[in-house]
């Protein structure tokens, strides 16, 4: 057992810290720090800055831009990025479909898609969930029927995050309705400019347009866009969702927001004598408790990465998503309470309101983050996994 990083890992951390805090455009980091909404241009620009430095897809195979880092180095990379308020590379590209194509794709698919995916020349959207297939993903109904060299796709996907920016969408479609539901699914890559693809916005409770419905009406998809074998899509889906779960504890960014919350609380006077909200023992104790829980989560993440080296996830990894989302939500709730009456100003802008940006963003961010315990396998699904696969219940 050893507390310290090795000299190599310490150097690695210092170099990344230096890069993230000096080489990523400040306008992007400012928006992230203030919990604002990034434009498409900012997301693309930030992503490409990382990719040019070899920091967008370090976990991919080396042949396609991977860096062959240790699990601990990948963890440090992820934490330092969030700590510096750098937006991580677009997950749909780098964590979701990229590794799937690298693992299951044909050589042609790899050459066609991977470089552009790494550089965000293609913006990928996710087409998994459907109105009747949420946590029960395998019951999806969007169908693909073979017609000559094409598949004809009909159906509806939903919760497609940032689908309004998407160039391509990776989908799970039903290619055999007559077998066990998991056995009749395939993965299809669909060009979103194809005739018959329609993206319709869903407004969320924070007032934003983050997610969409994607409708497919007789969309013609070349057969070469199928990933893996026909009816093997559930294998690719499980591979993708497994990757999603490992990187899903946003420890670094939640730590950063909590540190900012202390500054905000210290800047909020509650009395003419200069007493601040941070002097309130109930506020301070909530902060202390959240910091300790976050510390426990971060250390659990470190334990898990250190013990997952043989490629098999450590059982405690299921804790990360469950507790990570709970803490992310708890910190966002604390910000709401620190904002207090200023939280009413959510509709204001720097032109129309004297309130601080963080105060105006507090409640929309809190409302938006209710999603965190729902997506990526809801927290109830996580409990089911823990009870079933770890405790044998």
């Amino acid at each position, binding site marked *: 057992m050893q507390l*310290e990083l090795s000299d190599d890992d310490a150097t690695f951390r210092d170099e990344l810290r230096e890069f993230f805090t000096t080489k990523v455009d400040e306008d992007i980091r400012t928006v992230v720090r203030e919990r604002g909404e990034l434009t498409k241009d900012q997301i693309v620009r930030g992503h490409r800055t990382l990719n040019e430095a070899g920091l967008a897809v370090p976990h991919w195979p080396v042949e396609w831009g991977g860096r062959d880092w240790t699990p601990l180095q990948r963890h440090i990379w992820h934490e330092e990025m969030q700590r510096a308020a750098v937006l991580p590379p677009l997950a749909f590209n780098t964590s979701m479909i990229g590794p799937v194509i690298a693992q299951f794709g044909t050589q042609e698919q790899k050459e066609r898609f991977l470089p552009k995916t790494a550089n965000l020349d293609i913006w990928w959207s996710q087409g998994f969930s459907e109105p009747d297939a949420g946590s029960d993903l395998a019951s999806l109904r969007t169908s693909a029927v073979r017609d000559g060299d094409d598949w004809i796709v009909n159906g509806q996907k939903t919760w497609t995050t940032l689908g309004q920016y998407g160039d391509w969408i990776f989908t799970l479609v039903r290619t055999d309705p007559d077998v066990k539901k998991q056995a009749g699914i395939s993965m299809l890559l669909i060009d979103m400019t194809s005739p018959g693809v329609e993206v319709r916005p869903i407004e969320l409770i924070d007032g934003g347009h983050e997610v969409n419905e994607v409708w497919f009406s007789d969309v013609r998809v070349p057969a070469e866009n199928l990933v893996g074998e026909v009816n093997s899509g559930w294998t690719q889906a499980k591979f993708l969702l497994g990757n999603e779960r490992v990187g899903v504890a946003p420890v670094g960014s939640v730590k950063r927001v909590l540190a900012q919350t202390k500054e905000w609380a210290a800047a909020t006077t509650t009395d003419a004598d200069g007493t601040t909200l941070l002097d309130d023992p109930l506020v301070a104790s909530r902060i202390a408790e959240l910091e300790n829980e976050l510390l426990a989560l971060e250390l*659990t993440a470190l334990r898990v990465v250190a013990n997952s080296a043989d490629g098999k996830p450590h059982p405690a990894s299921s804790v990360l998503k469950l507790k990570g989302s709970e803490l992310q939500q708890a910190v966002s709730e604390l910000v709401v309470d620190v904002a207090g009456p200023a939280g009413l100003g959510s509709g204001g802008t720097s032109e129309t309101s004297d309130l601080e940006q963080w105060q105006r963003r507090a409640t929309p961010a809190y409302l938006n983050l209710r999603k965190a315990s729902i997506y990526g396998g809801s927290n109830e699904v996580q409990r089911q996994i823990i009870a079933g696969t770890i*405790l044998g219940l």
Partner: protein
Amino acid sequence: MDFTYDEEQLALRDAARSLLTKSYSDFENRRKAVGTGHDGDGPGYDPAVWGQMAEMGLLALPFSEEDGGVGAGPVEVGIVAEEVGRVIAPEPFLTTVVLAGGLVAAVGTDEQRGEIVGGLAAGELVPALAHAEPGSRWQPSARTVSATQDGDTWTLEGVKEPVPYGATADLLVVSAALPDGGTGLFTVDPSVDGVERTGYRTPDGGRAARVRLSGVTATPLGEAGADATEAIAASYDATRVAAAQEAVGAMQVALDTTSDYLKSRKQFGVPLKTFQALTFRAADMYVSLELARSLAQWATMVLASPSTDAAERRTAATRAWAQVSRAARHIGQEAIQLHGGIGVTAEYSVGSYTAHLTTLDHLLGDSRHHLGALARGVADYDVVDPIG
């Protein structure tokens, strides 16, 4: 950063587990050792098991070779503590070896360390730390027991209570308010005039005592008249971290026992694990356990690291126990509830795990106490960085 044990440490774990499992895997053996009902007679543990622990070198782990120890460190102590926790062995490893022994090793003279630590390591002398006083709440200082000096003679007056395993200890290490301020440490032979010891049971079947000191002649531990407040605090910190590992062992077994029960116990014609209302609660126990384990192991590494200072070690111990204490309440309560009535009986193991976990809070401070300390300092830094 590395959370894994090396070969030697794994061998130590196997040896300790083998000894303690042989002794206490039959829960009835523990009941015999601690006694039943409200019976507070006897030492509250099995002296034969204590002797075997000494033979295996477990009692010598944290002490230097010059003092009669084996020169291991917090990692090895934590490994043994976790095994003690797995069977809630009643032997006073924590309070005697880590707490009292650690303090003597830290402040005693060469001669005192050789005699007391050496005797403890060999299983021949059981010291107890008499620090808590009626009305005190985990402060590292003494208030109501006072020391007075007349030439080279020191005299103690006042009541120490509760003193863990104080009624049967061979030697008392007593803290006392010094005439010129500060807290001094003294050794007291419990058989001398003016020492009155009354022992009783603690909630987990352990033992504690009231120790009344009436004009008792005492020997300064280490330098006479020196303030030992920091040393007392540091020894409690080390004990908190070891206790965190002990609690992790106990919580793991409480959860395993509960999971097994949910699989085997049938109601309404089906196993209890059929009911999601129960299995989800077991899943939450697992979450609490793993988070607590992470902090316990981290704090152990902070203590073992050559590059951390006393303040960092203090904070790590505080953080670890704040988390473990909370987890222990959660897991202890749920373990009983998920069992149902059998969980509150003395003959079934799981309730005693809950009792022991609660007892550790009394000894070391509950989560409110430690979170309070953390809350008072949140303005002093921006983020908590666990990597050294």
